[in-house]
């Protein structure tokens, strides 16, 4: 990402935090980037090293003193009023996303098991020739493969559940903040 794009993105995100001196933070990063370039660093590499804009802001507002300022500045804003609603919506979206993923993964696992099971029954119930065995062997492997895909979906969902939750909360907050900014502008 180039400087102009980065600063624009930063400015857009900072808009959500009223009364925080957006311009001062922009100057701070502008100066930081220019100093890095003057020291021989590559512009894009340095900007990449700063991390994503939302992490930068999260880190800044993570500072107690700073968040106090943010809270104070947002006291009369809709954010305070809808804070609880945002959380409820975010957790609802999270619940739906996780539930859907699990249902899909579960149906994949069941389909896989069903293929294996049905192939087994077919072998058991019929007298087969070699080519049938090869075909059914392939089907069994396919069934196992599908089952494993389902299991790995569940495993990765569990592993990534925290990041998914954070992502959904962030997106929901953004959605509400956009509304808020529009209402105030």
């Amino acid at each position, binding site marked *: 990402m180039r400087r102009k794009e980065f600063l624009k993105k930063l400015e857009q995100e900072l808009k959500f935090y009223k009364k925080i001196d957006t311009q001062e*933070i922009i*100057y*701070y*990063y502008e*100066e*930081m980037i*220019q*100093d*890095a370039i*003057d*020291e021989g660093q590559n512009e894009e590499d340095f900007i990449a090293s*700063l*991390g994503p804009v939302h*992490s*930068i*802001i999260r*880190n*800044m507002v993570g*500072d107690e*003193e*700073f968040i106090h300022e943010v809270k104070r500045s947002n006291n009369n804003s809709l954010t305070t009023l809808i804070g609880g609603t945002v959380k409820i919506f975010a957790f609802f979206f999270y619940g739906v996303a996780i539930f859907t993923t699990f249902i899909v993964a579960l149906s994949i696992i069941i389909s896989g098991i069903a293929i294996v099971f049905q192939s087994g029954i077919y072998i058991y119930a019929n007298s087969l020739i070699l080519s049938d065995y090869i075909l059914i062997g392939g089907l069994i492997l396919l069934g196992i493969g599908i089952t494993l895909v389902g299991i790995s979906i569940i495993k990765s969902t569990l592993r990534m559940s925290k990041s998914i939750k954070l992502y959904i909360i962030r997106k929901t907050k953004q959605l509400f903040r956009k509304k808020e900014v529009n209402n105030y502008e």
Partner: protein
Amino acid sequence: MDIQLKKGLLELMVLASIKYEDSYGYKIIQDISSIMEVSESTLYPILKRLEKQKLVKSYNTTYNSRIRKYYKIITKGREKLSKATEDYEEVKRMYAFIKR
């Protein structure tokens, strides 16, 4: 390291980095990062806080036809640094007790 402890030490590190000469954001990070990891987004609130507590003062100066913000340690900031040096002996004793 404990977040609160790191935060307190970072403030002192920033003060120490401008103890002998005034400095600017990028250089402060460069000076500190060899000892302690600090990101640009961590430094900004610290600088703001130190300024608000009147431990440092900032001023703008022209460098290469652009404005650069410098930070200068002032009396209260120097006092905080000396106090930290005094506290060090006490902290060392406490850690010796914790470690035993």
